[in-house]
């Protein structure tokens, strides 16, 4: 079966890495404080995932109990921040990008400002974010929104400004109004660009959320990793990092599905 072969091929490299890692640890070449064995990390990850309290039907339902593990709450917290922050950045960037892409004069007007602001990493805003919003979720959401804003904006501008003019001519010839052309022609024509901006934006949002949680809030995966460092729980640090990797992968797969659906008309999809 070809797909089985493909999966086996994909698993070969990670398995090899884990094997070498386990051998190195078991041979005692590194201190477990610096690098615990994959087996120890795996145990910790399961412990982190499972509920810490025994099941008590008096105070919770079975599902609530199952989902009450620390890892799931941390992952949920991080994911919630990513979604909220990303949505905020997206909702601001998309209309601005559409208008700027369609209007060359506005683009000339706003472009220098954007080009200066764009290269500043969201991380550099941390001190300002704390000054402006204090601690807790608001500065974190602000930073994530900022991280998502520019990729979506830049790609939307690029997408709209390079819509093939023949589509616009055809639409005008068929009597479409400006609004109709915008919604039915320019927006879908720019969609491949917008979606790749969304993908980069979510990636950035995910990057920023971890850092933001290390500074401003007291839950989430970023917070947990930093907390584990305080106690020298190296196994938990790695378990947390592994969880970040898994969630990143899940988001990417979901984005890929969305892409395939929205761009099903597109060549090569």
């Amino acid at each position, binding site marked *: 079966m070809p797909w089985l072969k493909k999966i086996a091929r994909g698993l070969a490299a990670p398995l090899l890495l884990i094997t070498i890692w386990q051998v190195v640890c078991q041979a005692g070449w590194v201190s477990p404080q610096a690098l615990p064995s994959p087996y120890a990390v795996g145990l910790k990850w399961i412990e982190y995932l499972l509920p810490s309290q025994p099941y008590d039907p008096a105070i919770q339902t079975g599902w609530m109990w199952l989902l009450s593990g620390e890892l799931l709450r941390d992952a949920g917290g991080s994911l919630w921040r990513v979604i909220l922050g990303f949505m905020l950045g997206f909702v601001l960037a998309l209309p601005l990008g559409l208008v700027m892409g369609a209007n060359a004069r506005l683009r000339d007007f706003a472009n220098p400002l954007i080009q200066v602001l764009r290269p500043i990493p969201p991380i550099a805003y941390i001190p300002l974010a704390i000054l402006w919003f204090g601690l807790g979720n608001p500065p974190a959401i602000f930073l994530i929104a900022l991280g998502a804003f520019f990729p979506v904006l830049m790609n939307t501008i690029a997408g709209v400004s390079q819509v093939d003019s*023949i*589509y616009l*001519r*055809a*639409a*005008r*010839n*068929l*009597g*479409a*109004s400006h609004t*109709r052309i915008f919604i*039915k*022609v320019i927006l*879908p*024509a720019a*969609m491949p660009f917008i979606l790749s901006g969304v993908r980069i934006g979510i990636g950035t949002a995910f990057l920023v959320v971890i850092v933001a949680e290390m500074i401003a809030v007291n839950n989430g995966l970023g917070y947990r990793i930093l907390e584990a460092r305080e106690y020298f729980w190296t196994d938990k640090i790695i378990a947390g990092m592994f969880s970040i990797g898994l969630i990143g992968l899940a988001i990417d797969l979901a984005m890929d599905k969305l892409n395939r659906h929205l761009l*099903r*008309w*597109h*060549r090569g999809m």
Partner: protein
Amino acid sequence: MHPALEFHSIAQSFTTQNSTIQVLESIDLTIQEGEFVCLLGPSGCGKSTLLNAAAGFVSPTQGQVSFRGKQIFDPSPERGMVFQEYALFPWMSVEDNVAFGLEARGESKDIIKPRVADLLAKLRLSEFAKRWPRDLSGGMRQRVAIARVLALDPPCLLMDEPFGALDALTRRSLQDELLQLWSELGKTVVFVTHSIEEAILLADRIVVMTHRPGKVKKDCQVDLARPRNPADAAFNALKQELGQLVMAEQHAFENAERLSFTAD
């Protein structure tokens, strides 16, 4: 006879960084209602520019174009354009493409659905209604594009080398279909081509244009009975005659290209 499209002393020039190109010069042309006119000439003779002016995509530097007595300023569905590149919206299914103009006009679903189904049937596309344009061959795509403009029942069709990108066999069958539609629907057609045979096969009247700046070199009626046969002696005589005219312009075009190449 009623004039449909009128070109009054049209001139068109485009300015690039360091030069001005005169594309059209003193064009006077009247196209009658129901007439099938081919604009014939080599590349760069401005025939597409003339068509774009009739569509309302560009306004001529001098002169004016009018349709049924009214000056043209903007594109309008009454002058339906068919592009060589089809220009179908790739994110819409075949039927949504055909419905686009009707929706823009604000027609209700009860009107749009049967009208689209009718047109798809007429152009032998019914089974492809739900497909994406990318799934279709070039010939089918161009039939969708024709259905899309016909949906709005335009009195005039503007066709910019519509079959230029198709293979010879597909081209022949689309030419026949177009003639069939034309005789059935009685529309005015302005058809740009660089194929002499295509022009003779289709047109009531052929307007041969010169190389840049484009002028009318010859304006002749084609008095051959339809259906026309390319093996016919009269067909061939006309083909010879027009061929010499067009080739002279083609050589002028090639010389100009060579000159601009050595100048660079």
